[in-house]
Structure formats: structure tokens, C-alpha cells
């Protein structure tokens, strides 16, 4: 595989070890907050950002965000170390490290942000960095396509989310999550339903709920460390995080319970079957991640202690074992050159450490005691029994967990202990930077299971308290909860799971046959994109004709219509006209302008038209002089002069006007010209009729000498009172000149090529 490194390439690079070390330091930094947060006092930092819009960079560390922050930095550090070795010698490794580190920071911002707008910004940043990471193998068109698919889907959801956030902020009067969750539920308020749908749209696209799930398995085009980090442990959980975060404000309505239960449960069961159907182990894991996301959404539908504890415990254990398994698959792929479940087997002697790490993760996934996965499953069943839709949720959970058991066997047992197939090359043990991650994560899964009290007190219960918006009573996370219904259900799960594992080969074939008949959402996605592209092409062809005359016509027509509509609806009466007091000179100037205009319209020579137009401009300059505005008059004169010179230079190179061509368009053009000219005159006359407000004039007249030591008010305004405006204008002059210069130069170059 192209994504693999040369085993002898140097891997101790600054970009690899540096990012990993910084992330590890961040992990330690967040670790110190564990006792404070567990004691029930969240931490809050405020950095004003756009205070006028009530947008602040507020960070809020409570149980939920701390759990996420620890997972992001902890797993992040391990994955970055892993990637340093995994991609060692890759020509674009530095770029990869930058993407991965940027993603880590965005994700951290997402879970720590207290301001909804800040949260949205970080949300979109994770989308972008994820796009870059999925499309890392950018030479591969499939990789690019999948990256774009993930970007478009999750960014669309993100836009819905932004709308939802703004609705929340406007209707509740605050964008701060901490204030929002403290002020109680939004259920029953005016915009509740709309807000709920918008937020769910964001969460469901990000966390890949059926039927918007198809981007996640495709996102596995990314290198394995990315899959381990983004698409199992962190980013896809952003949707779940959002649901948990808004749980105190949005949960409890029938709508919330039904939507989350149904979408979550369907996603979980569908994904478990799909996981069983795959032969590529990475794809299998991708679908089990979907299953986990579905399960989490399903349990967040509930509001009881056990349901939320189930969600949080499962979230923790899933992040640990799933990241571990992804990394393990990466090692196997690295060592053997294949990820095919049908070929892999008998690797335990060649890769003993990998086998042990995989076993720890697999046992946690299967939910075998004393791993934390077992506790998560027990709590989950207890939670399902408390749910409102228990009759629906419980069987779905049972099916999903049983399938998970079987898939755990396929992923973590069979490659190491199963019959050996025909491997592309002989297996060898992975190097230590790659082993460290799976081993640490596996050990943690076991340690938390053996000491559930510590995990519960420091991590799970503070998170549960944050989600429920009330202190957690605790005491639910236990390794041995006695002989009860959940234990019985666990035993049924094991039995069912074992059965499925034993029969998984024939089941897989049957599933493949069903899948072949089912509608392919992924292919429909391409159809939808095609429609968009065709629509864009069609309307561009219609509007962007490339004919300058049509653009001008459209611009002036829009101007005329809008002015006309405004005049008809808003203006009362016409302007008052008075020709009294006009001197001979003023009549003369008016005549000059009129003659110039008529000449412009009637002539068939471009140069004549240009000079006539210059006459009109000079007439206008004369008007300025008669009304004693020398600065404006001088500028007008000089500009007219330069326009004539510049246009003359351009026009000399153009062919003569074609009389027949002019005739063809002259009638509509004349109408439009008369309309625009007439309307402008009408509006100006109306404006002049209004009493003139002299406040600004008086201010500048008074202040120009006293404050700016200048007697020429026009110049003082330009270079002192409104300097920033002038600066903007000269910047525009420069940009326009450079733009025209480049265009003309480009034309020259193109012509030169033609000649050759």
C-alpha cells in the first residue's frame, strides 16, 4: 500500500515527535483539573472576541468537556507518535502532522467552547481538517471524492447547526452554554421544534446516523492513524457531544425521545450487520464505529441516570478500544500487507504484543468481564430497561451487542489465533512507537474495569452530572451488580454472539446478497452531485454569456427597474422646476453638453464618440467651476482628459463600428438609456428639492483650520478627517491598475503564443 512507510526511514522528526509531545503536555494539563471537576466545580475562562455581538471565546471545563478533552489529547498523543512511525519517510509527512495537530486543536476547542458561536467555528474547523486528512492521498481520485463527500455532508449539517444556534441565542438571550443549561429546558417554547431539528441535523450528519451514514465508511480512505483518531475516537463523537451538551436544554420531549431512539437504534443495528458483512478489517471497524455512534445517540434519548451513565461509560470504553483496534489493524496491515479477514490468521506467534493489545481491546469490545466494556454493557441494559421506548430499545441493543461480540472475534481473535491464510509477506512484530498506543489503551480498558470506582468518580460521574444538568448520585458503575436482569441479558448476548461468530462466514455471504439488492445511497450521492453540477453549468451558460453589452444592459435594467419601483411606491409628487435666474453662460454649458450627447449617440466613429463624450465631461467640469468647486472641477477635467487618452489608445486597436450591428440593438438600448437618464435626473431633482442639511459642512468649515491646519476643506477631508477612506480608495486604484495591467499583459502573451 502506498500509504506505508519504509521501515528504515528516520521517524524521529520534529513534526512527529514535537506534535505528539505538545499533545501529551496538554493531556497532563487537563489531567490536573480532574479532582476539581470531580468535586463539582467547573472551570471557566473568558476571552472577549466580538463583544458587540455577544460572541466570546469562553471555555468551560465540566465533567463532559473534560472527559472529551482527555480522550482527545491522550489518544491524540498516542496516535501522533504512532503516525510518526507509520508514515515515516512519506514525502508529505510534515503536512500530515500539521493537519493532524490542527485537527486536535480544533476538536479541543469544540469540546471546551462555552459560546455557541465559538463552538460552531471549531465545529467547522474539525470539518475542514478532517477533509484535508481524508483527502491526504490526494493523488487518488477516490480519496478526493470521499473527502469532498464528507466535507459537503458535514458542512451542510454545520450550516443547519449554525441556524439552530442563532435561534437558540436570539430566543434565549444568551450564547453561553453554561447559562443556557443552567436556565432550564427549552421544551415547549416557541422555537423548540425548529431548534431541535436544526441541531439534530448538525449532530446526525457529523455523527453519521442512518441514512446520512455513508460518508463515514468512505472516510476510511484516510491513512489508518486518521481513522483511529478522527473517525472513531474523536470527531465523529462531536455530534454525540453536541447532543449530550444540549441534553439539559433540549431533551425530554416526545420528539427528542422518538427521534433519537429510532435513529440511534436503526443506525446501531444496521451498522452491526454491515460490520459483519465486510471482509476488509478497516471497513469492519468503520461500521462498528457507526454502531457505537448509534448506540450513544439511542441512550441519549433517555433522561434517567442509567441511560446517561450507559452513554458516558460506553463512550469512554468505545474510544479506548476502538482507537486501539484501529491502530492494531494498522500494525497488521503494515506487517503483512493485507487487511482481508479471510486471509489473516495465525499471527500470534509472530506478533505477540500486538496480539495481546488486540485481545485486550477485543475483550472490551465484546463486553467480557472484568473489562470496562462489560460494565458498559451492564449499565446499558439497565439503562435500556428504564427507557420510555424500552420494548423497542432493548431488543435493538441486544442484537447490536451480540453482533459486536461476533465482530470482536473477527477483528481481534481470528487474525491471531485463526487458521493462517496466504499472506502477501511474512509477518513481523510492529515497532514500539506503533505498539505503545494499542497497549496503553488496552491496559486502560482493563484497569478501568478492575477499578470501576476510580473511572466512575473522576470521569464518568462528572460527565453524567454535566449531561443531566444536576449532580449525579453515582453508584451505578460496578463490576459486580448482583444477579439481575442485565446480567441475564449479558449472558444471552454472549451466547448469541458466539453463535453468530461460529456462523459468520455463511452469514456474511447472505448479507452480501441482501446488500446487492438494497438501494445504494453512496451512488445516489453521486447522482445528486451530478444534478447540482449540471444545474450550475446550465445557469452559468444562461447568465454568464461573456458578452459585455448584455452585462451592461442587465445592470442598467436592474438599476432602472429598482429606481422606478421605489419612485412609484415611495415618492409623492414630482420635483419643482424653475428656469428663472439662469444666466446666458449656464444655458451655454447645457447646450454644450446636449450637443455632445447627441453626437455620441449618432456618430458611427468610435473616436468621434469618444471626443464628444469628453465634451460632455468638460461641460460638467464647467458647471463645477460656475458653482465654485475648483477642486472637483480640476479633477473632473483631468479625469476626462485621461479617459479620452486611455480610451483612444484602446479604441485605435479596435475595428470600425459595424452599422448593421449597432442598428440591431439600438431600439432597446435607446429606451433603456432614456429611462436611466430620465430617472436619474428625476431623482436628482427630487433630492435637490429637499432642504439642505448644513451640519456637516459647518463642522468641516469650522474644524478644518482649527484642528487640521488646512484651509482647503476638500483636501483636509481627503487627507486628514477621512484618511482611512482615502487610503482604501488609493488601494483600489492600485489594485485596478495592477489588474488591468496583468490582463493586458496576459492578452499580449496569448497573442504572442498564437503568432508562434
Amino acid at each position, binding site marked *: 500500500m502506498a500509504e506505508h512507510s519504509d521501515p528504515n526511514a528516520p521517524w524521529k522528526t520534529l513534526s512527529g515527535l514535537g506534535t505528539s509531545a505538545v499533545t501529551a503536555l496538554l493531556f497532563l494539563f487537563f489531567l490536573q483539573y480532574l479532582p476539581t471537576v470531580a468535586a463539582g466545580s467547573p472551570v471557566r475562562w473568558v476571552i472577549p472576541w466580538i463583544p458587540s455581538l455577544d460572541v466570546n471565546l469562553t471555555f468551560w471545563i465540566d465533567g463532559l468537556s473534560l472527559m472529551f478533552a482527555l480522550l482527545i489529547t491522550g489518544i491524540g498523543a498516542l496516535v501522533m507518535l504512532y503516525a510518526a512511525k507509520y508514515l515515516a519517510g512519506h514525502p508529505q509527512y510534515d503536512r500530515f502532522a500539521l493537519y493532524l495537530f490542527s485537527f486536535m486543536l480544533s476538536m479541543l476547542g469544540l469540546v471546551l467552547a462555552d459560546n455557541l458561536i465559538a463552538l460552531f467555528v471549531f465545529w467547522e474547523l474539525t470539518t475542514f481538517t478532517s477533509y484535508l486528512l481524508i483527502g491526504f492521498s490526494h493523488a487518488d481520485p477516490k480519496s478526493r471524492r470521499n473527502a469532498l463527500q464528507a466535507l459537503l455532508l458535514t458542512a451542510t449539517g454545520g450550516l443547519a447547526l449554525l441556524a439552530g444556534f442563532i435561534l437558540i441565542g436570539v430566543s434565549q438571550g444568551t450564547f453561553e452554554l453554561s447559562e443556557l443549561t443552567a436556565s432550564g429546558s427549552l421544551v415547549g417554547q416557541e422555537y423548540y421544534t425548529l431548534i431541535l431539528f436544526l441541531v439534530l441535523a448538525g449532530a446526525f450528519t457529523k455523527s453519521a446516523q442512518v441514512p446520512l451514514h455513508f460518508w463515514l465508511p468512505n472516510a476510511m480512505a484516510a491513512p489508518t492513524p486518521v481513522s483511529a483518531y478522527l473517525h472513531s475516537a474523536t470527531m465523529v463523537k462531536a455530534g454525540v457531544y453536541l447532543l449530550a451538551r444540549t441534553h439539559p436544554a433540549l431533551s425530554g420531549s416526545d420528539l427528542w425521545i422518538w427521534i433519537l431512539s429510532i435513529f440511534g437504534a436503526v443506525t446501531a443495528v444496521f451498522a452491526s450487520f454491515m460490520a459483519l458483512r465486510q471482509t476488509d478489517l478497516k471497513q469492519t471497524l468503520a461500521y462498528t464505529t457507526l454502531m457505537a455512534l448509534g448506540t450513544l445517540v439511542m441512550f441519549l434519548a433517555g433522561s434517567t441516570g442509567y441511560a446517561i451513565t450507559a452513554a458516558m461509560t460506553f463512550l469512554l470504553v468505545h474510544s479506548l478500544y476502538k482507537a486501539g483496534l484501529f491502530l492494531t489493524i494498522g500494525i497488521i496491515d503494515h506487517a503483512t500487507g493485507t487487511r482481508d479477514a479471510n486471509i489473516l490468521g495465525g499471527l500470534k506467534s509472530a506478533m505477540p504484543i500486538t496480539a495481546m493489545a488486540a485481545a485486550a481491546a477485543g475483550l472490551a469490545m465484546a463486553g467480557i468481564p472484568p473489562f470496562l466494556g462489560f460494565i458498559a454493557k451492564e449499565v446499558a441494559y439497565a439503562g435500556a430497561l428504564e427507557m420510555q421506548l424500552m420494548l423497542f430499545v432493548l431488543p435493538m441493543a441486544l442484537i447490536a451487542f451480540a453482533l459486536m461480540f461476533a465482530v470482536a472475534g473477527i477483528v481481534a481473535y481470528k487474525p491471531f489465533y485463526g487458521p493462517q491464510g496466504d499472506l502477501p509477506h511474512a509477518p513481523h512484530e510492529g515497532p514500539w512507537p506503533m505498539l505503545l498506543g494499542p497497549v496503553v489503551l488496552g491496559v486502560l480498558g482493563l484497569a478501568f474495569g478492575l477499578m470501576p470506582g476510580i473511572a466512575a468518580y473522576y470521569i464518568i460521574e462528572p460527565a453524567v452530572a454535566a449531561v443531566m444538568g444536576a449532580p449525579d448520585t453515582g453508584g451505578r458503575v460496578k463490576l459486580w451488580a448482583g444477579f439481575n436482569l442485565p446480567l441475564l441479558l449479558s449472558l444471552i448476548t454472549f451466547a448469541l454472539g458466539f453463535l453468530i461468530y461460529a456462523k459468520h462466514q455463511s452469514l456474511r455471504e447472505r448479507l452480501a446478497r441482501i446488500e446487492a439488492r438494497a438501494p445504494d445511497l453512496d451512488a445516489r450521492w453521486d447522482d445528486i452531485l451530478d444534478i447540482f453540477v449540471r444545474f450550475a453549468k446550465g445557469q452559468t451558460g444562461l447568465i454568464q454569456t461573456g458578452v459585455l453589452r448584455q452585462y451592461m444592459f442587465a445592470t442598467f435594467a436592474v438599476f432602472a427597474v429598482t429606481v422606478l419601483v421605489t419612485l412609484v411606491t415611495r415618492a409623492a409628487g414630482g420635483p419643482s422646476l424653475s428656469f428663472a435666474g439662469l444666466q446666458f453662460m449656464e444655458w451655454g454649458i447645457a447646450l454644450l453638453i446636449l450637443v455632445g450627447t447627441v453626437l455620441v449617440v449618432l456618430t458611427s466613429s468610435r473616436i468621434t464618440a469618444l471626443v464628444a463624450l469628453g465634451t460632455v465631461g468638460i461641460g460638467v467640469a464647467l458647471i463645477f467651476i460656475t458653482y465654485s468647486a475648483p477642486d472637483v472641477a*480640476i479633477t473632473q477635467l483631468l479625469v476626462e482628459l485621461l479617459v479620452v487618452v*486611455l480610451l483612444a489608445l484602446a479604441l485605435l486597436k479596435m475595428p470600425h463600428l459595424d452599422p448593421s450591428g449597432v442598428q440591431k440593438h439600438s431600439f432597446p438600448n435607446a429606451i433603456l438609456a432614456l429611462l436611466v437618464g430620465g430617472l436619474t435626473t428625476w431623482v436628482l431633482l427630487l433630492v435637490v428639492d429637499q432642504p439642505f442639511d448644513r451640519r456637516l459642512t459647518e463642522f468641516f468649515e469650522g474644524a478644518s483650520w482649527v484642528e487640521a*491646519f488646512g484651509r*482647503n476643506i476638500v483636501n483636509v477631508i481627503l487627507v486628514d478627517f477621512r484618511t482611512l477612506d482615502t*487610503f482604501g480608495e*488609493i488601494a483600489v*486604484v492600485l489594485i485596478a*491598475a495592477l489588474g488591468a495591467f496583468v490582463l493586458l499583459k496576459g492578452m499580449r502573451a496569448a497573442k504572442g503564443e498564437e503568432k508562434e
Partner: protein
Amino acid sequence: MNSIIFTAGARLLVALVFVFSLFMLLRGHHLPGGGFIGGLLGAVAFIIYSLACGPEETRKALRLSPESIAVIGLGIALLAGLFSFFMGDPFFTGQWYWVGGDSYETSVFSINTVLVFDIGVYLVVLGGILSLTFAFEEEA
């Protein structure tokens, strides 16, 4: 343009118009003129020269390319703004220093950022228009 009279006259005219443009620039604070008008006049001067002797000669006479002149002008204008910023005033606040006195009335002359800014405007307008003109003229 192959007219001896025009070519000979242009040399004189260019110098006159160019000096006049500087005059307009400098007097602009009290009387009609300023950076915009000065820049336009300066451009007219060099366009006359360019029509008489061709753009290549004019480029040589200018020494710097007109694009560079425009960019330098924008930089000078920005410096005038930055200076007040470093003096602790809001961006682009005019800074005045009196030479030979302590106020406008008593001083002999003043050094101020307002004129610096106007010089920047002058150069941008001059450079911008000339780069356009040359581009048109040289487009074969």
C-alpha cells in the same frame, strides 16, 4: 507620432506640467490641489512624453516602473498612518511638528504626516494611471 514640433514641444511641456503637478500637490492643503489632482497632472505630463517619444523612452525617464511607483506610494501612505499608530493616537491621526516655533502661527514651517500621506496618494495615482497607459500603448 512623428511630429518634430510635437516632440520638441513635448520636452518643454513635460517639465512644466510635471513641476506644476508638484506645485499642485504641495499647495493642496490650503488652495485647490492635492495628491489626487497632482497625481493626475503628473500622469498627464508623462503621457505627453510617452505620446511624443514612445513608452520605452518614458519608462527610462521614470527609472522606476509605474507599478512600483504605485506600490511605493501605497506604502508611504500606510507609513503615515502607522506613524500615528506608534505615537499612541488612533490610526491615521495627523501628526504635526513645528520648526522654528511652537504653533502653526509662530513656526517657520511644519513637518506633518498629512503631507506624507498626500505624497503617497500622488504616487499611487501617478503610478496607477501610467501603468494602465503603458499597458495599452505597448499592447501590440
